[in-house]
């Protein structure tokens, strides 16, 4: 009578096999540069320009990049850049969350005169190429003493992260039934407590997602630190390129090692907050 549905069974058809093959192909294709970089990072100086897959791997490059030896070779303090990258990006994300969460809440809950325009304007910061604004910023930074400081970097990276945070979180707040907070108001909570106790915990997955994305965007930013910092507040993205020589000898193996190290912090962050990202999925149901 009733057709039995077997779980986990898929019929093999020409179409489905073809689709799988295509996926495998795409997977290999997109992973290849990363695999290549890992191999390169494990090669010695003498082997760095070879294309062999068989060689005796060494982990020395990672040590070199992080230590004084790397600084001697390229005049860049990579470990220091790593720290200031974390400070810059962490600071920018923190500022964006502190200001962006209330802003997103207001934008998601209430329509007021010009609210849509304001949201659009915030997004429009992202339309202009960074190169266009960075020159005037350079002049301003030089005159105000923000050049090559952590504060200066936090301020400029916040331009990148704030719109992201506000736009992502606004839709989370919009999806949240306002009646939840109103029930809390009737129970005698103040507006602020209702926001903190009821709305905020429910958008935690949204906050985690927004923070992670914002951090990645800030971390990968290249133009602003390139022009607005020197040795003091410079970031990983800029420091990595220094291993390519810039006139002197190019160390491709060290560049690869530095890039791999530089990719770790966002990865670690993603793994730490993954828990919140996933838990968000099971909370959805407010109505039916």
């Amino acid at each position, binding site marked *: 009578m009733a057709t039995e549905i077997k779980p986990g069974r898929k019929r093999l058809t020409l179409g489905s096999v073809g689709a799988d093959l295509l996926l495998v192909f795409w997977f290999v294709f997109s992973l290849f540069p990363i695999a290549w970089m890992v191999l390169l990072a494990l090669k010695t100086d003498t082997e760095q320009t070879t294309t062999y897959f068989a060689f005796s791997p060494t982990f020395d490059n990672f040590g070199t990049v992080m230590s004084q030896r790397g600084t001697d070779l390229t005049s860049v303090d990579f470990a220091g850049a790593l720290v200031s990258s974390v400070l810059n990006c962490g600071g920018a994300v923190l500022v964006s969350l502190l200001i962006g969460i209330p802003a997103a809440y207001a934008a998601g809950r209430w329509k007021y005169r010009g609210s849509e325009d304001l949201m659009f304007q915030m997004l429009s910061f992202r339309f202009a190429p960074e190169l266009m604004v960075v020159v005037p910023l350079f002049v301003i930074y030089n005159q105000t003493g923000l050049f090559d400081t952590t504060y200066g970097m936090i301020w400029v990276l916040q331009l990148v992260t704030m719109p992201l945070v506000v736009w992502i979180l606004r839709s989370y707040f919009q999806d949240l039934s306002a*009646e939840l907070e109103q029930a*809390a*108001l*009737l*129970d*005698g909570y103040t507006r602020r407590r209702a926001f903190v106790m*009821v709305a905020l915990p429910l958008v935690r997955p949204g906050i985690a997602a927004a923070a992670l994305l914002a951090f990645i965007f800030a971390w990968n930013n290249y133009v602003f630190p390139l022009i607005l910092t020197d040795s003091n507040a410079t970031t990983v993205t800029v420091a990595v390129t220094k291993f390519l020589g810039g006139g002197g000898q190019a160390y491709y193996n060290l560049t690869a090692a530095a890039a791999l190290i530089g990719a770790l912090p966002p990865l670690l962050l993603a793994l730490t907050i993954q828990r919140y990202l996933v838990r968000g999925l099971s909370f959805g149901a*407010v109505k039916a």
Partner: protein
Amino acid sequence: MTTTTAEPASLTLENLRKTYVARGREPFEAVKGMDLKIRPGELIALLGPSGCGKTTTLRMIAGLETVTAGNIKIGDRVVQDLPPGKRDIGVGFESYALYPPLSVRENLAYGLKARGVKGAREMVGRIAERLEMTELLELRPASLSSGQKQRVALARALIRNPRVLLLDEPLSHLDAAQRQRVRRELKVLQREFGYTTIVVTHDQLEALSLADRMAVMNAGVVEQFGTPDEIYDNPANVFVADFVGEPKINLFEGTVERRGGDVHVRVGREGTLRTAVGDADDGRPVTVGLRPQDARPAADDEAGVPAEVAVYEDFMEFGLATVEVAGVDGRIVVQTPHGVHWRRGDIRRIAARPDRVYLFDTDSGGRIR
């Protein structure tokens, strides 16, 4: 549910208005001057079609929507400028508004904790028992059916023992059997604790069975406010007559005919009905309202409307005859009692008790008495 039963309070709405102003759109008047005086401990049903402003009215009373004009009083206290938490009102939301990360038990206790009420655990247990949901207490809202969520929402509105209770469609998602049980339990609880209560509903049976008095709303105004009997037996206008009553009242055109002391109304080519209306000039065109339950075969010496049965449906307890009357647009439905069987093609003369033949002004829809 403790000894701290609040003294019942009256709820008064005076010329209450709400205009929604949205940018780029015409201002929209959702509530247009409502006057209601609800007595302490009374249960009022707010009945009306979708979009007529029922939820808006409740939200203004609860303080979740600003008041454009007018007054809201609980007892002698004017409350429209107080924050929601200071009004002592319990609300059962249409969308349940249950807090997803908390269990049902925690959801129920939440509001009590916010006020630092002692003995929350016992109160939760007691209300859960009354509303047949003890087995739900440890579950999360996400795993409840909509009917169960609705009962939890109802429990949460009741548990704080508010002076005024506002329920927005509290029974709409329950199945028929549950609806009857919860409806009765709601009424018992309401009587016992004397909450002054407004229940919003689409369902006229619910309104008729629950309410001490009911307010029939349409397009932001209260068309009639009275006991279910008054609403049913004495509708104030065509809208109320049409909205309340199942099967729907028959409405058709007629002309007033005065014969000596009696007032008749001419229906179609050959029919007349005697009516108890006093205040109608001869020859005035009117809309006639006749409930299917009131229509019956005419006695031999009585005025009546000849009609031919087009469809007859037998529901055992009663039957419904859809009849055609020469000269009348549309059909007229007549309810026949148990044991009476009409047949398609029968010719019957229809009449009704004179005070059950309602006349309405054709233009304004107002009742002619």
